[in-house]
């Protein structure tokens, strides 16, 4: 199985501070990868580097076989990125927001219309498409955010804290949506979060990042075996705390 994301010693420094320090990572096709770490551990920076929005100061990255530092457009065309706490143009309706994204992706008008309807249906917002986004609840906004990504039929989704601030029901819906996208459409998902319980629920593999370093990489079971001993249950929270204390 070819790796969708591959990094080697990826480093990003801001002045003296090292945000990401020698990150080497592989994410395979159709995986749901959980990217864990406390706030300010360098998760978002890593994601921005993968998208070509920030240039690494060292190391290499390949996303879908492309170097993001050289051809970010090629990557952005195929990768859907949901920023943390995504915003919308509140004075436009949900559909209009989607249409704007479709145009930015240079979809032909007829295809765009089709995609917008499918995406709205997928995230369950077909009823609210013509409401102003300003009137949306937080859960609806997050789902609209996913819909925006689906318009371009991405191969890879990078979701930054997609469930942050959602109520339990919203969180469940979001997680189900992610799982179904991965399962039904074969989309690879990279999920950054520090809500460990959710990550454990849906992710096939996780990476833990602390202070810019990737301290652990593997499936929850593997990590649990490695850190907590063979007989311990796959409790991501415990694994995480163990790593956190170590560094």
């Amino acid at each position, binding site marked *: 199985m070819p790796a969708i994301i591959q990094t080697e010693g990826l480093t990003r420094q801001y002045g003296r501070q090292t945000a990401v320090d020698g990150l080497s990572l592989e994410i395979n096709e159709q995986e749901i990868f959980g990217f864990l770490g406390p706030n300010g551990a360098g998760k978002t920076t890593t994601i921005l580097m993968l998208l*070509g*929005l920030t*240039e690494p100061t060292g190391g290499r990255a390949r996303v879908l076989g492309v170097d993001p530092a050289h051809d*970010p457009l090629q990557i952005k065309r195929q990768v859907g990125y949901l920023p943390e706490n995504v915003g919308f143009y509140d004075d436009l309706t949900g559909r209009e927001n989607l249409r704007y994204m479709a145009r930015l992706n240079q979809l032909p008008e007829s295809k765009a219309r089709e995609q917008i309807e499918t995406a709205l249906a997928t995230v369950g917002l077909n009823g609210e498409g013509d409401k102003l986004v300003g009137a949306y609840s937080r859960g609806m906004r997050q789902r609209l955010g996913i819909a925006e990504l689906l318009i371009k039929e991405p191969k890879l989704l990078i979701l930054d804290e997609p469930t942050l601030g959602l109520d339990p029901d919203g969180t469940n819906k979001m997680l189900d949506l992610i799982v179904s996208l991965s399962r039904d459409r074969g989309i690879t998902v990279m999920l950054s979060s520090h809500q460990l319980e959710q990550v454990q629920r849906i992710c096939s593999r996780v990476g833990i990042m602390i202070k810019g370093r990737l301290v652990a990489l593997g499936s929850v079971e593997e990590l649990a075996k490695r850190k907590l001993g063979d007989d311990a249950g796959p409790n991501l929270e415990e694994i995480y705390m163990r790593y956190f204390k170590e560094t």
Partner: protein
Amino acid sequence: MSLLAAATTGPWTGTAAEKDSTADLPERRIIAALQYPGITLGPDDSFSVDLLLKNRGRSDETVLVEVSEKPQDWNVEIKRFGTLVSGVFLASREDQTLTLTGKPADKEIKKLPPGTYRFAIKARTVDGALTQASAITVNVVSAEKAAERVSIETSYPTLRGPLGDKFQFSLDVRNDTGQDAIFNFRATAPSGWETSFKPAYESKQISSLQINANSSKTVEMEVTPPYNAQAGEYDFKVEAQSPKAKAEKDLKVVLTGTFGLKVGTPGGLLSAVTERGQQANVTLLVQNRGSAAQREVKFEAFKPENWKVEFKPEKLENLDPGAIKQTEITITPGEQSLVGDYSVSVHTDGEKANEETEFRITIRAASAWGWIGVAIIAVVMVGLGVTFRVLGRR
């Protein structure tokens, strides 16, 4: 004889001498003399001769004069300014002039018989102590001998005028021959000049004219110069000739020539375009439109302050009639001049002729600035372009 005045002053002094100073003078001495001892008259003339009286003594004298000798049929009078006098008072060292006139007593006598007539006067002091006598011989000649008694007179024997003008001499022709005569008029003129005669105030041309004896007529002589006449002096001689008598008169015409200048530029354009501080060149052509040569033509410019206007050459010399010479004008506008149209006047000053030429000097904005501006914009654009290339492809 009457005593006119006897205003004696001071005591008489003794010694007598014939010297200038009062002390050297004799006590009493008078001189009385007619100016000319003899004159010749035509048959129809009268004469008048000055009678000089002088007191060369130290004392004042009253001198009485009288005609002591005259032919019959002559009226002889002693006058002073038209008043008949019989004597004159002469202060010491004073002179007086009286006039002795003589003419035939009978007005009917038109012609005196030729011959020699003698007239004499006598002067004496009132007391009769001193006397003086003087005489004059008048020779009356026959009319035939009076050929020279035809005269041509004119008040203005020399006329001046510019080229192209006609000249009119007004001639008084007097016939004193005593006979009516027809006079032929003839003029000798430089070649090319035309002359014609006509009576005064009439327009018909004449070549001869009758003038009665002892009268005069006014004849006008018109002189037309040839069209190509040059300035200068021209001599004329006019003759009036009757069968027996002839008179001549020399006349002169001074042609002053015309003065005129024409000033222009080769293309006829009286404007120039330049930038501030950048000199503009204009060629100025000066033509002598007059008939007189211009010895020196100078130029002067009326210009804004801080402008420089130079002429090369600064003056034109010896410009013959019809000739064209040129001067190069270099106009340098001031550095602070505004953009727009300025007026610069060139005053061409020749002899008795001048010309004012106005130039419109258009100051254009320096286009160098334009290119600098374009360059700045280009640099900024290129800078932007480089920035686009370096930063843009993300």
